[in-house]
């Protein structure tokens, strides 16, 4: 075991004023683990830092312990500077964690400093290094779902030069936009909005489109996923480095709400789109009801698209049926941003009537077999009104696709309580907790087609920046620079295969593997982020974090309150 060099920083007296550094120097010079103790005035200043570096290099010191300010300040740079010389470096917080908060108790502070240094010495002497794993990243991507989000992700990745496999359960790309004749706020046709992307999918040789295809199995981890597809061309096996999920959502069927399914001419927004497409829409008065099955206890979220959708369809009803009227019964009109707000004003000028109702007092439908009218309590004027109407359109929200739960299970990503894929909250909006899996579009959260296209691009960039490195080291796979200490290692001889670690791992990095006649735990190094939960639950001590193994923790606890003499 090589000896440790100890550097103590006086911080121009900030530390030395409280802590008796001379006492500590004498104490640790007598320690058999310590090679030398050097007190410097300020380790962060160039001359002292250089002195420490030269000393480390010339004496070939393998282990260095610094006692100075907190590792969140300048100390990290000093630590990294010394680590460059090839030494294992640890730092003890003597300023923020000791001198500055125990100023009135110098004796206690000195004792604490000595104990903390002693504990870190134990760590340095007993720590081991995790075995790193270098992985070749497959330079291909799989994009699931060919709606606006999936198309934009696939095109973005192909433009960056990655071979992209685009899979959809439908026969043609386009997703929900294929149904929509016109999109808000530009009133261009739905398929036209993504026409350039669909064309690019056909033209770019790097993109391959698989229609009517489903995922049958997924194996592997970030950098090397083995995916099997089943489609009309039979089974296809792919090896991809990253996966973009853009599987979309569906619109809620308002079964039982406002007489839907029982009364004729009570339809959803999707049905009115279809009627527009076939040209068979004539009505005198259309009434749109907003927030049907949304913003309630069951689905408290706003579905983003229904308000602008109703504005657009109300105006279309008026355009296509001269003399027709349109009412929008809403709880609040959600038209964020300058463009949509202008669209709202345009609808008002066009003559669309807006009536606000309370969630506690929803409108009531009149009519037995055919809609004859809607009774609504106008919450602003405080009076009840009856609107004679022959068409009632219900704005229902996006709900998770029934297939997305199975996809999420396959790719081992979590879904939220409404069934949408869960992002890594709050600063990684298109990433999931399974590295290498990216999400975008309405499968993640209700968005408009514009936002879906933007998210597709974001997911493409994130996937590309991961694939861009041709090889990746498991130790470097962390979202935080320098955030990963190592990864857990399972001792196959001590493991009894109880599976506690598998149950507790938040990254699904532990697996039980059958070897011979028993199961043992195996850690997927690429997925492990070194939180240590598996170590805490292992009943046999088979699971260890080499950097902070049981010997380290045990010694640190033993030394924490050792008498200082």
């Amino acid at each position, binding site marked *: 075991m090589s000896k440790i060099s100890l550097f103590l920083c006086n911080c121009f007296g900030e530390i030395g004023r409280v802590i008796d550094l001379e006492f500590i120097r004498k104490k640790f010079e007598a320690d058999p683990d310590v090679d030398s103790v050097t007190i410097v005035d300020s380790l962060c200043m160039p001359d002292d830092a250089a002195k420490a570096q030269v000393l480390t290099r010339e004496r070939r010191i393998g282990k260095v312990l610094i006692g100075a300010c907190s590792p*969140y300040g300048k100390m990290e740079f000093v630590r990294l500077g010394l680590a460059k010389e090839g030494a294992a470096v640890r730092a003890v*917080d003597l300023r923020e964690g000791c001198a500055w908060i125990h100023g009135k108790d110098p004796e206690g502070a000195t004792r604490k400093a000595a104990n903390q240094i002693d504990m870190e010495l134990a760590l340095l002497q007993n720590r081991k290094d995790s075995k790193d794993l270098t992985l070749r990243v497959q330079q291909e991507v799989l994009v699931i779902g060919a709606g606006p989000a999936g198309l934009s992700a696939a095109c973005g990745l192909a433009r960056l030069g990655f071979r992209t496999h685009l899979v959809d359960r439908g026969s043609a790309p386009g997703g929900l936009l294929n149904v929509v004749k016109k999109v808000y706020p530009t009133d261009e046709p739905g398929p036209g909005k993504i026409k350039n992307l669909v064309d690019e999918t056909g033209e770019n040789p790097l993109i391959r489109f698989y229609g009517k295809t489903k995922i049958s199995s997924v194996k592997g981890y970030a950098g090397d996923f083995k995916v099997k597809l089943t489609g009309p061309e039979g089974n296809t096996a792919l090896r991809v480095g990253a996966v973009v999920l853009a599987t979309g959502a569906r619109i809620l069927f308002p079964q039982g709400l406002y007489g839907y399914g029982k009364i004729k001419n009570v339809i959803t927004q999707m049905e009115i789109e279809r009627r527009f497409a076939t040209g068979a829409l004539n009505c005198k008065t259309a009434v749109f009801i907003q927030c049907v099955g949304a913003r309630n206890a069951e689905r408290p979220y706003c579905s983003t698209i229904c308000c602008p959708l109703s504005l657009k369809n109300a105006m279309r009803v008026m355009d296509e049926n001269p003399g027709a009227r349109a009412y929008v019964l809403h709880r609040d009109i959600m038209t964020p941003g300058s463009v949509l707000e202008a669209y709202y004003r345009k609808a008002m000028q066009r003559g669309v009537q807006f009536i606000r109702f309370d969630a506690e007092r929803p409108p009531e439908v009149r009519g037995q077999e055919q809609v004859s009218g809607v009774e609504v309590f106008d919450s602003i004027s405080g009076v009840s009104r009856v609107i004679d109407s022959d068409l009632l359109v219900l704005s229902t929200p996006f709900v998770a696709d029934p297939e997305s739960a199975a996809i999420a299970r396959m790719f081992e990503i979590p879904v939220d309580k409404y069934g949408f894929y869960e992002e890594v909250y709050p600063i990684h909006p298109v990433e999931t907790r399974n590295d290498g899996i990216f999400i975008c579009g309405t499968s993640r959260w209700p968005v408009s087609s514009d936002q879906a296209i933007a998210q597709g691009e974001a997911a493409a960039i994130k996937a590309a920046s991961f694939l861009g490195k041709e090889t990746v080291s498991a130790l470097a796979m962390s979202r935080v620079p320098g955030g990963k200490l190592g990864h857990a290692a399972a001792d196959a001889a001590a493991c009894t295969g109880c599976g506690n670690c598998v149950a507790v791992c938040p990254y699904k990095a532990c697996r039980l593997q059958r070897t011979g006649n028993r199961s043992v735990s195996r850690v997927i190094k690429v997925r492990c982020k070194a*939180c*240590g*939960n598996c170590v*805490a639950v292992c009943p046999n001590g088979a699971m260890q974090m080499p950097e902070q193994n049981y010997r380290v923790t045990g010694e640190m606890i*033993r030394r924490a309150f050792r008498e200082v003499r």
Partner: protein
Amino acid sequence: MSVDRGNVKILVFACRWCGLIGADGAGRKRIELPASYRVIPVDCAGYVEPDAVIRAFASGATGVAVLGCHVGGCRFNDANHPALKRLELLKTLLDTTGIGGNRLLLGFGTAHESHQYADMILEFHRAMESMPSMASWLPQGQ
């Protein structure tokens, strides 16, 4: 066996993403704290094994504090949820064995809550002052 009070020894397991940064903030604000505690930095509160807590008591700690991120704000997805469950269970066990569940403090805070960190340490120190030292149970000479 003499009952030794007042000689408080607190072992703090602090997660380096929240607890430890909170400690750093408390230091920068020069909040005066009793020098009765020692800190073991861990990557996540999930790393703290119940055995380690028991071992700390066995080696004479009056109290043990485990400081992690807020539930729902863990750096490692939700790694501190199982930790919380595990340590709450351990509290029951400590109560059953007579050590006392109140010797184990579970603290959750974010990185910028340095005042909360300082208050937690101070209050825990005061609570531990009235508790008998665990060292009374140690064999002589340790």
